[in-house]
């Protein structure tokens, strides 16, 4: 029960505003440091023996993909919390993460296409990894559209949470698509240790940078929504 009590304590809007105000300077500084160092190391690595200098694209493509999947995972987790425990801040957090996740997904698709052309000879192919990743972008767009389509916030939150949880089925499909099907996209190379350390470290630093950036923007977006709710309450009170 302790983790749930802890979660509910900090999921209180007032406590969240206090906690996030203290955390934001640290996550913002960590973002600048990690992205700065990551960019420097990205352009300092030697060319890959197979992919040449296009290996440089690894350092922006993989972090974007990683954050696109992580952001959707966060939305699904918040949606589950919202549906089971009906906590209003969970809805806010899920809604705030969606546009950021959609941007990371779009960046993953564009950088992947620009990497695919010189390596595969084509910008796009309908293989399992690329198609399931495109589906993730549509899930983000559908989730945001559903939130905006329903006027009653409680109903909108409920319907969007159900959609988010159904869409979460796509996450393991994206991750394991390269193992389950024969794809043009290369297989996993980080956890299996196939990636040389000279490329691994800049990649991990860039992933941390993207992660801190997402966390920073996510907290600011949740704060924005809390302030907007206060404004709506004041407007209703004055009407």
């Amino acid at each position: 029960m302790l983790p749930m009590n802890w979660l509910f304590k900090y999921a209180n809007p007032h406590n969240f505003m206090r906690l996030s105000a203290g955390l934001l300077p640290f996550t913002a500084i960590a973002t600048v440091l990690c992205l700065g160092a990551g960019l420097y190391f990205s352009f300092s690595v030697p060319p890959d023996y197979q992919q040449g200098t296009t290996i440089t694209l690894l350092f922006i493509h993989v972090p974007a993909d990683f954050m696109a999947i992580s952001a959707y995972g966060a939305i699904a987790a918040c949606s589950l919390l919202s549906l089971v425990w009906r906590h209003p801040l969970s809805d806010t957090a899920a809604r705030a993460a969606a546009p950021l996740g959609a941007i990371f997904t779009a960046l993953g698709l564009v950088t992947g296409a620009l990497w695919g052309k010189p390596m595969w000879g084509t910008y796009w192919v309908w293989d399992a990894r690329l198609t399931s990743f495109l589906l993730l972008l549509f899930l983000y767009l559908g989730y945001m559209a559903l939130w905006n389509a329903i006027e009653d916030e409680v109903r909108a939150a409920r319907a969007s949470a159900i959609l988010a949880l159904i869409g979460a089925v796509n996450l393991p499909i994206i991750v394991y698509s390269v193992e389950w099907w024969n794809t043009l996209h290369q297989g996993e190379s980080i956890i299996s240790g196939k990636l040389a350390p000279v490329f691994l470290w800049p990649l991990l630093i860039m992933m941390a940078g993207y992660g801190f950036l997402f966390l920073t923007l996510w907290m600011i977006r949740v704060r924005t929504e809390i302030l907007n709710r206060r404004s709506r309450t004041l407007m209703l009170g004055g009407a």
Partner: protein
Amino acid sequence: MSFWQMGGYGDFIWPAYGVSALGLLAAIVWTLKAYGDAKARLKALEGKTP
């Protein structure tokens, strides 16, 4: 000059970095602007409330 050519792959690498920078910058600007607007709106409303 060779740095910009990136071993002949500059036409793919630089647009990818450019799009990424633009996308992330847009997300930052959009988020901060919305936050600033929300703070200003609330402040104005609190000023009106007796």
